């Protein structure tokens, strides 16, 4: 029995660690690419939200948040992405099967998206500035508080944004568009200078 091979991200070939762009002495933007653990979408029916929330809770050991709030632990993030719909990012093994085991068709649907998104992290004093230069939502802390998530796009590229800190954002980007998005965010960051780790 052969082991499951490593997942490969479309960014592996383009992400080069280093320091780039303007005034690189005082860096204000830091970019990194991480593979998400396993990423699963759970969808409840209008009359089964409670049951699904329980199921998700029992698997993730986290209270299920109401949008825009997110739930966040060492190993799990839960974001609500629509009515009765959640996106669960977790390092827990076999998350999809576990959830499918708990959520029957009677209660809802479970869809694996582990391979469908690439996770880009951006942080630093100018992180919000860079995002605002291409994404038309208000990144002011009062409008987009820490521990909440929003879905938007940069031109045609959809992105789910999880604000994990005042200056920290997790960006879930469609895999096939990941290089285009990376090209944009590095170009936008180069105006202020950025580091890639």
């Amino acid at each position, binding site marked *: 029995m052969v082991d499951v091979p490593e997942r490969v991200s479309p960014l592996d070939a383009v992400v080069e660690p280093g320091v780039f762009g303007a005034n690189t002495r005082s860096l204000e933007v830091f970019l990194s690419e991480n593979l998400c653990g396993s990423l699963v979408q759970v969808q409840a*029916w*209008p009359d089964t*939200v409670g049951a699904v929330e329980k199921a998700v809770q029992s698997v993730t050991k986290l209270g299920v948040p109401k*949008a825009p709030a997110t739930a966040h632990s060492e190993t799990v993030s839960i974001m609500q*992405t*629509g*009515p*009765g*719909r959640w996106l669960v990012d977790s390092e827990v093994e076999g998350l999809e099967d576990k959830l499918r085991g708990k959520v029957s068709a009677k209660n809802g649907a479970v869809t694996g998206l582990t391979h469908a998104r690439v996770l880009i992290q951006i942080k630093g004093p100018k992180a919000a500035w860079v995002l605002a230069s291409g994404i*038309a*939502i208000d990144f002011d802390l009062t409008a987009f508080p820490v521990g909440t998530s*929003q*879905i*938007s*796009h940069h*031109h*045609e590229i*959809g992105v789910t944004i999880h604000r994990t800190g005042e200056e920290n954002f997790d960006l879930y980007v469609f895999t096939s568009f990941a290089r285009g998005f990376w090209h944009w965010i590095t170009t936008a960051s180069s105006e202020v200078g950025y580091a890639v780790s």
Partner: protein
Amino acid sequence: MKRVAAPHLGTIKMRLTCPFCGERDHQEFTYRGDASATRPPMDNGSIEDHNTYVFDRTNPDGEHRELWNHTSGCRMHMVVTRNTTTHKISNCEPVGPWTKALGGKS
């Protein structure tokens, strides 16, 4: 003019209030036109009924109830009431299975 893969650079820039995501630029939404056009039920519906559904438009000069889909957000459909002369939006309400659940939100 035949169009190929028009880059999805947005539709328009009025601000719509998505019942789930809140106020966003229209660029995040897809327009689906006159909301008063409703499909005849599955169990009946003559050719005339379907023709009316597919081709007839009220195209009012003033209040217009129209369908939008938040395609770059939560992908919900909503009915927007908008004045076609002033572009003023007086209402955005969800449609679909979740209407009741979101009733308070819209």
